[in-house]
């Protein structure tokens, strides 16, 4: 379980670097939507679409604003992947 979470976090971090040109680890653990010039709400949609492509998941419009921190995104992606893996 721990290994999978680390893997998810690393892959989410890679999407952050590609889309926002932002290293979520280097930017600090308090990195939040709107808290950095490259992560505004317009770029947020690009980020969400890239995450969906990278993980093969989909977020609803209601979920998108709540994906407002790196940690929350890792958790949400993990939940989607777990739900998909469940029998």
């Amino acid at each position, binding site marked *: 379980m721990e290994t999978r979470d680390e893997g998810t976090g690393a892959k989410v971090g890679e999407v952050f670097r590609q889309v926002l040109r932002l290293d979520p680890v280097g930017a600090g653990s308090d990195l939040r939507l709107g808290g950095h010039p490259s992560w*505004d*709400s*317009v770029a947020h*949609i*690009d980020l*969400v*679409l890239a995450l*969906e492509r990278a993980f093969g998941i*989909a*977020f*609803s*419009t*209601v979920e*998108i*604003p709540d994906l407002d921190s790196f940690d929350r995104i890792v958790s949400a992606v993990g939940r989607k992947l777990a739900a998909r893996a469940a029998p």
Partner: protein
Amino acid sequence: MRYRADLGVTLPQELRKDFLSKLWYVSDAIEALSLDDERLDLVTFDLRTPDDALAGSVATRITDVARRMLAGYRPLERRVVLDRTASAPSSGEDPHAALAASGDLHLFGRGRAGIGPLLARLLDLLGADLRRLGDDLHTAPHRFPTLIGADTLARCRYFEAFPHALTIASHLREDLDAIAAFARDAKVEQGRLVTDPHALAPSECLLSPAVCFHLYAWLAGSKLEGTTLARAEGKCFRYESGALEGLARLWDFTMSEFVAVGTQPEALAFRERGMARAQTLFDDWGLAYEIHTATDPFFVDAFAKQAVFQAAFELKFEASAVLPYRGDGLAISSFNYHQDFFGRSFEISDAAGKPAHTACVAFGVERFALAFIAQHGRDPRRWPARIRQLYAEAGA
């Protein structure tokens, strides 16, 4: 002859209208098109002149539009924040023909309407009510040109989001020979000006598609000391091709806008106040309507991403009035929050030096009048008491 385009995908029902409105831009050879309600994976269309080879190419493009609009698309959950559609009054008719017969409406061409005495007086009353609404929102009156600079629209990123709706203005080049050739050779064929395109100068202006853009251009590069609250009414132009429809969807229409430029809380509070004040206006006019979340009609490639963006952050609400003769609603007003998009684009900063946030409340005045007449009829004696009285006091 009817042609078919198999989409290869089934469109979501809520995407039907937006999809169809885009198909008019696939080819100017299309004369008619439809999407079956029962089969949302099949478009049928007619060409102005039957041509099997062209029809194949058009069908491929239609399929491509479906694919591109669905890329990244997800169901956009519409949230209704106010529903006053119950017991909607109905005049029992589509008023266009009767208004034309009584000299109150004249269509000069697609999307271009002349307004006669009944509607003009009604719009005067609405204008007075909108000025009172603007006073209540503490907005200062402004007037803006109908032309808008191409540079301003580029800063609004309008070319990417709504290229299909643009109306480009031009004039003849400052060239004696070109002007003389135009004067000699220009003619009109089938309602179109026929001339040498090289005689036209590169366009520095377009006809404005919205009022509030002028204010952002005015404030460009400035640092605000407080909130700027402004209002203006102006002619707006959005070309909608085959979707143009009487007063419901004009190419050339009038928009009354109320705008706030300031901090995020100020912009959001303005939109809330504007929405509440608009409800009073609609109720005063006895309209049946609802207010719900909405998205703008972005063009094909921008559609999914921008619509998701607007829906996710609830950036746009619309007031939709019941159009009884059509059995659906017509957007007569919108309440928009743009975050700091225009603040960044036009380098407008708030008192703290941060990019300003903006909000606007907009009314489509011809649509408002159409909804009122469609619901209450053309006879002032049957109108709601307040409007009837104001109409009488105006000497009509």
